């Protein structure tokens, strides 16, 4: 299940949608004997060119997807966008077809009445958008608990989450997995709340804290996969016996790297520069850290000009 907010900002969505509808109607006009703008049916009226309509819907979806991709290259990949936009254009296409069929029969009453099924769709999608937003905001709020309490640095969870998502993309994870890594990164310090007070954290076993945080997330049952990533966020790539930790989730490896980088670069007066931090972390390459993840992470930093 996609957990993101909207696919893109409103300033992208609206022009994309309009352009797509235009392309769809154009297709319909070219490949059928219908003139959608004048709502006239030229020639044979007994059947609608279903093929032209299907093509129109597909082209509209493609155009919409393309605009999204161009406007926000950091967003989800094409297949994910198209999958979420197709139902919208399917609804619009069906309404257009119905309108073309009904206009000659029921006249101007077709205008308001044929909007009805579209309004139902619009209402449903708005509700879905609202719940998506609420869910996302809830995760953000949860992530702020350790920061409000002084158990982790302000902004740490957000920065780690952004870096982790970007690294996941460079590693070509699925959009679903990228979302899971992002959420896990936001919540990765939740387990610190088990400490009696902030000063105590340094003396506690990080893995035990992580396991506690994971158990809270797991208890909710709402975020499949996220709890496991949190649980193993401190696990080493090569364990103490020199064995490769094959079962270590890729999400945990990413959060591990991103979190330590932010710890090194963001902590007040003794903060390290990006180069220093990467040099320090490179000592753990192939031992503490997965080399592939470390490379991808470095590429993310380079791309961001850090």
């Amino acid at each position, binding site marked *: *299940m996609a957990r993101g907010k909207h696919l893109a900002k409103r300033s992208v969505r609206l022009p994309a949608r309009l352009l797509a509808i235009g392309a769809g109607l154009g297709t319909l006009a070219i490949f059928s004997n219908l003139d959608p703008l004048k709502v006239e049916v030229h020639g044979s009226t007994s059947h*609608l060119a279903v093929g032209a309509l299907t093509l129109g819907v597909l082209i509209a979806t493609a155009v919409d997807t393309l605009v999204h991709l161009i406007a926000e290259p950091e967003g989800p990949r094409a297949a994910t966008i198209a999958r979420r936009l197709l*139902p*919208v254009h*399917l*609804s619009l296409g*069906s*309404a257009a*077809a*119905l309108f073309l*069929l*009904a206009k000659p*029969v*029921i006249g101007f*009453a077709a205008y308001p*009445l*044929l909007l*009805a*099924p*579209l309004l*139902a*769709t619009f*209402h*449903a*999608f708005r*509700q*879905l958008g*609202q*719940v*998506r*937003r*609420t*869910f996302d*905001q*809830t*995760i*953000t*709020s*949860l992530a*702020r*608990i350790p920061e*409000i*309490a002084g158990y982790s640095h302000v902004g740490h969870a957000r920065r780690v989450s952004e870096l982790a998502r970007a690294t996941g993309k460079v590693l070509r994870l699925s959009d679903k997995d990228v979302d899971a890594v992002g959420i896990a990164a936001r919540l990765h310090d939740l387990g610190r*709340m*088990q*400490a*009696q*007070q*902030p000063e*105590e954290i340094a003396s506690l076993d990080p893995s035990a804290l992580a396991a506690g945080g994971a158990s*809270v*997330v797991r*208890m*909710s*049952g*709402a*975020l499949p996969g996220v709890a496991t990533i949190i649980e193993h966020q401190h696990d080493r790539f090569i364990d103490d016996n020199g064995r490769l930790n094959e079962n270590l989730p890729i999400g945990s490896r990413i959060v591990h790297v991103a979190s330590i980088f932010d710890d090194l670069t963001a902590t007040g007066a003794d903060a390290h520069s990006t180069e220093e931090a990467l040099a320090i972390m490179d000592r753990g390459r192939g031992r503490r850290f997965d080399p592939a993840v470390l490379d991808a992470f470095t590429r993310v930093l380079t791309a961001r000009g850090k």
Partner: protein
Amino acid sequence: MISKRGTSIRLGAFIALCAASAAGTLAWAVLASGPIDWGAVALFGVLALLAETFAVTTAVGSTYSVTFVITIAAATVMGPAGAVIASLFGTTGILDASKRPPIKHLFNASQIVLATAAAAHALHLIAGSNPSFGRSLGAVTVAAALNFVLNTGLVSKAIGLSTGQPTQAVWREQFLGLAPAYLAYALLGLLLGILHVAVGWGSIVFFLVPLFVARNAFRSAIELQDAFDRVVSTLVAAVEHKDPYTSGHAERVSRLAERVARSYGKSPQDARAIRYAALMHDVGKLAVHNAVLQKPSSLTDNEHQHMRRHTEHGAELASGIDLLAGVLDGIRHHHERWDGLGYPDGLAGEGIPLAARIITVADAFDAMTSTRAYSRARTLEEALDELARCAGTQFDPSAVAALKRTIEHDGWTLPDESELTDEDPCHATSHHEPDHGHAHTAPHLTGISHGSR
């Protein structure tokens, strides 16, 4: 009070009456009508079945289903007899989709047949055989109203009989808000019927695609809403895990606060917002250090200050969530006192938001009537007396009165001992004096300096 046996006899009689009326209606519809177009009956029957199969049920039990659209379309195309038979097909979809007892199927099928028959006959009588569009609109509005009244009325009556709630209250709270949907569905049904007659069955496909897409979006929204609720209850569970005196406390306070809000004449939506606020009123304790929250001995002044900040922390956490915008006040101000000596802002009297005043009283009531490590639970009467004693100083007198009314009217089940035993035994020792426990366990008249958290 009605005995359980008496209830089930009356419910059984009611369902039998519905079933008999439905059977009579069905027989009359089939016998009295002219020849029936069985092809159209099959088409609309299958559509009704699909509509029921793909119905989406929300967590609170209301259902998004377009069956009524199909029924009205069938009535427009075939008249009452065909519509009733097609709607009966739809009810077999309910049969497959759930594992409810047969008696419920019988009742559901009966009430659907009755409501459909009434709507279809009204449509037929008013619109006549070849109606103008305007006349059809009038007819379909009447049909929608009849269907709505019968459908929701009969279901409310059945719920009322089986749960002992007043029928009217059930209807008002659960179904009244659905009236516009019935009208919208009826209009869609009329349109579908007209299109079917004029254009043919192909139009139905185009018509149903947007509705199906809408249905899928609704289902995703419901799943996410469910996930949100689970995250919220996890938060509450996490608070109770940190503060083991409070097992089940938030849930009870939220139930009580919602009822008190209702008795204040708040709308169901407002009461639900207060319920959420009450559920999350202590969520800020998540950001309170365990060393303070779980300290078995008296808190120092600094620790008190830290503890008190849970009201602000809670509001801050909830402030990031748009959905909870209406409940922030309830969370932030649930430790204010009527006399202005509370925290965090020292608000007094009507200056304290009503939601917070209600939560304060419900919070105190539950704290007093549940067994805490340091004190035995008080009886219901003792707790109400204590609230009354502190009304006007710590508590809003009208909120205390509303809580008393609610409890006397609806009753209140005190928490079970077994619910409360998962306390850390090392905390259940005698050095835990009541006056540094929760302020409301023993309401203080002397002011906040008296060690209230």
